[in-house]
């Protein structure tokens, strides 16, 4: 029997089974630690890009800001390992989606939440995550995944709080993206 799955684009290749994705992600993460001594991340880049954008849009405010100021002081705010790594993430995702026939403009979840509703929820989620990642000094990739892989207390506390809050927030906000 064919199982319909709204999460997949019609006609695209199926996603990898979880065990294969887990193994492949483990190989990439382990290689990252061996080659660099640290794990994988994401918000290190978005934070730097925020400082860079601030420096263009409101240079005086950004330079005077206690958080963003020190980042833009020396001029090369985007010149960092994490910027190149996230560029790699963009490219890897693009190539994977292209090979699997999953490239298409769409608003996922618009069927149940409506276009505007879905985009407002996405924006609200992004803002919450943006604030949270600065409080925790990292996100699901940097503190959760990479932190737990080195058996850090921080990593496991992050994952516990992350999933507990996620389960509750999903219940309260209509069950996530459908």
């Amino acid at each position, binding site marked *: 029997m064919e199982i319909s799955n709204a999460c997949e684009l019609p006609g695209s290749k199926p996603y990898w089974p979880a065990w294969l994705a887990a193994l492949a992600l483990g190989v990439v993460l382990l290689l990252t630690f061996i080659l660099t001594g640290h794990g994988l991340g994401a918000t290190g880049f978005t934070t730097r890009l925020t400082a860079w954008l601030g420096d263009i849009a409101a240079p005086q405010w950004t330079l005077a800001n206690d958080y963003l100021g020190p980042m833009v002081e020396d001029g090369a705010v985007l010149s960092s390992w994490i910027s190149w790594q996230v560029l790699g993430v963009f490219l890897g995702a693009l190539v994977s989606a292209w090979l699997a026939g999953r490239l298409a403009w769409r608003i996922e979840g618009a069927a149940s939440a409506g276009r505007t509703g879905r985009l407002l929820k996405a924006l609200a989620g992004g803002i919450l995550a943006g604030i949270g990642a600065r409080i925790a000094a990292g996100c699901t990739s940097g503190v959760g995944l990479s932190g737990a892989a080195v058996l850090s*207390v921080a990593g496991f506390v992050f994952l516990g709080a992350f999933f507990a809050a996620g389960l509750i927030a999903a219940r309260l906000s209509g069950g996530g993206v459908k």
Partner: protein
Amino acid sequence: MIETFIAILLGFGFGFVLERAGFGSGCKLTAQFRLTDWSVFKVMFGAIVFTAVGLYVLELAGLVEAAGIYVPIPYLWAIAAGGALIGAGFAVGGYCPGTSAVGLMTGRLDALVFFAGLFIGTFIFAGFFPQFDALTTAGEFTKGDRLPEALGVPEWLVLVAMVGAAIGVFVLGGWFERRARAAGQV
């Protein structure tokens, strides 16, 4: 130069695998919170255990030096508050920061909007930095940065427990997924 190349290559692998796992899809990601698709738990925990065991073996073999591996500082309140905000943002918005980067590259405009929200969130944090500053280092746990020292047990025992837990996640997740399928929820 070589560092830049390695960064792009590792990032490429990261983005490729996340997309293959289905983690560019807010629908598939949040199905974890509906308990109808356990891919997020399975993939994350599986990769964590693989890397943790791999690092342990490489350290035993003398190929990797433990002192050279970065371990985040356990500011417990900061980590818990930040983690909870990111979890709530994930449930509401459909992504976390890394997966929104993957999602937007597949053409998902909701992922692009989530990604844009990250910048607004960072600006808000920066704007209220004097208020947030104390929270970012709140609750430092001093007994040890890693579980073996914090719990006072040998590392191999932590790893054995994690391998067991990972198998448990796959078994339990498989049960929930079969149940959801039988109920027509997927």
